[in-house]
């Protein structure tokens, strides 16, 4: 891995935070404390982490329904995020968005998205802002293998080339679009689809945060230098079912056990950095403990937080409307 020791520790902390957050969300959901449904990012941590470490605060991302990991990696605070998922007034979106709409414009997170394929056009727009205002920023559209089959993704890839936008399409292929495998649902090759538009594209091992980071850095550099868009097809793993209520019977127990045993990006990271002598096991254990304590505190605070004031039902529909909606 080409990361500095400091970046390795930072990457591990982010990945571990995402994992701990998602396991906590799952526990809260199983206990009936999450009002709606959530889509867990566990297994995909290296993707959000590796990509977002190549970005600045001023860069923008758009996310998906499986957006907790992207949010954390881009800098959203986990406390308000957990409160949002539990439907509290102190949540990132004041309890109006929930798991599928976490957004924090201050850190360049333009929102998780309940619509598969909803994000890529928005990323083109953020990239257009950067290009028009010459801010040097880039925009990243995180999408899944499912969104790769949406027309918005195809339209956005074409528009991004025609307008030469500083945008990066990250197709995060976790192998499953809801309960249907990508193997069945995706025809042809996603990298070749991008190449069909004349777009730079590469396939990346999503279990390696270092590989993801390197690929993202190449794409970000290209975008910042005016070289236009890039598509990264990143192969990763989804550890849970599509949503928290999905018992995931469409994968065998043997498959799921092998996935957790052999294809866990966190285990892989630990093995690589300790074998290479880049990080001590004790340092990794210390991060684990700190993260665990932080997430525990966040969950307790979210449980104790007040629900939104009923009066906020009709606020923030518009910036101004003349009278209440």
């Amino acid at each position, binding site marked *: 891995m080409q990361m500095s020791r400091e970046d390795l520790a930072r990457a591990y902390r982010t990945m571990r935070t995402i994992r701990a957050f998602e396991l906590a969300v799952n526990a809260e959901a199983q206990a009936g404390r999450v009002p709606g449904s959530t889509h867990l990012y566990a297994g995909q941590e290296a993707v959000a982490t590796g990509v977002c470490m190549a970005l600045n605060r001023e860069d*923008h991302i*758009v996310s998906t329904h499986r957006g907790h990991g992207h949010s954390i990696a881009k800098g959203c605070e986990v406390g308000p995020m957990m409160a949002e998922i539990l439907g509290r007034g102190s*949540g*990132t*979106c*004041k*309890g*109006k*968005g929930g798991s599928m*709409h976490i*957004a*924090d*414009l*201050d850190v360049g997170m*333009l*929102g998780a*998205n*309940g*619509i598969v394929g*909803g994000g*890529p*056009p*928005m*990323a*083109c*727009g*953020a*990239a*257009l*802002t*950067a290009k*028009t*205002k010459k801010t040097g920023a880039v*925009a990243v559209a995180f999408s899944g293998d499912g969104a790769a089959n949406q*027309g*918005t993704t195809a*339209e*956005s890839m*074409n*528009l991004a080339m*025609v*307008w030469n936008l500083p945008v990066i399409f990250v197709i995060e292929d976790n192998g499953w679009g809801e309960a249907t495998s990508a193997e069945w649902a995706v025809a042809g090759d996603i990298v070749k689809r991008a190449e069909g538009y004349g777009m730079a594209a590469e396939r990346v091992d999503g279990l390696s945060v270092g590989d993801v980071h390197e690929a993202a850095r190449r794409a970000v550099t290209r975008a910042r230098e005016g070289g236009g868009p890039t598509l990264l097809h990143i192969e990763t793993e989804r550890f849970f079912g599509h949503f928290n209520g999905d018992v995931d019977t469409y994968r065998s127990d043997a498959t799921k056990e092998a996935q957790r045993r052999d294809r866990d990006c966190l285990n892989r990271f630990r093995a690589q950095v300790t074998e290479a002598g880049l990080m001590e096991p004790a340092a990794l254990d210390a991060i684990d403990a700190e993260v665990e304590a932080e997430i525990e505190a966040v969950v307790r605070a979210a449980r104790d937080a007040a629900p939104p004031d009923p009066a906020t039902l009709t*606020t*923030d*529909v*518009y*910036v*101004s*409307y*003349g*009278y209440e*909606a």
Partner: protein
Amino acid sequence: MSEKTFRAALNEALHQEMAANPDVVVFGEDVTGGLGGDGEEDAWGGAFGVTKGLLAAYGRDRVLDTPISESAFVGAAGGAALTGLRPVVEIMFVDFIGVCLDQVMNQAAKFRYMFGGKARTPMVLRATFGAGARSASQHSQALYPIFTHIPGLKVVIPATPHDAKGLLIEAIRDDDPVIFLENKMLYDVTGEVPDQSYTVPFGEARVVREGGDATIIAFGRMVGRAEDAAKTLAKEGIDVTIVDPRTTSPLDTETILEFAEETGRVVVVDEANPRCGMAADIAALIAEEAFDALKAPILKVTPPHTPVPYAPELEDAYLPDAARIADAVRRVTQH
């Protein structure tokens, strides 16, 4: 002040706002036209010529043609608006919203609410609408009830060149997503339009004329037809008020109710189809809020519950005209 067409009034609004604010950008299909050809630049200036000349004044960085990809560029308008531009995008015919409604309905309209009040989405989506051009079912609809139904959107329907300019400037300066609907049959209509920049506020109806016998509420091109009906009725001794709400969201319920109560007899003229349309919405409002003042049932004058037909004889029968409006007024005044 000078006489200008509806089209020229809109063009002037775009010029003045682009000059005033570098964050204003315009994009859409053929907003210049001719890209990649060896002929004229800015060949179209929009399918109806509304954006003509912006390219020469503001360049390709701010006046961008798009591929025929409404989802991508309407969605890009939302993303651009969230991040600091004020995009004005053109959907050539509002009917094409069918291929990109998600980016309006689920995305731009809801950013502010979903994100807990932190987002501003100052985008304008301009689109032509309306029957009368013999363009059949997919190029003629009046879909403003669909947009009016969606919280988070503002919906504007100018009826005169004066209001077209002032409302468009207001729309561009507004911090919420605005659907700006231009009846294509009005582009060549002329009227007095001030040369300087000015705004017409949203949610303030225009009282076109006042008369004590009945109140007609009409939108867009139907305002002119209501005026034609009023002239005929005046000769019969029936004096009507005409209210043009100008925006359906926000809606100036105060002015509508004021004149509904004053005359007690109301006709609502709507170019949209009748079910769940503006006419039904306003009739329900008046029935709920001004029931005691009513002297007759509220009548709706709308097209039938059909797609827009092609043949002139059919299309002319589809659209409300002055005769149908006058007939409805006679019925409420004779009740």
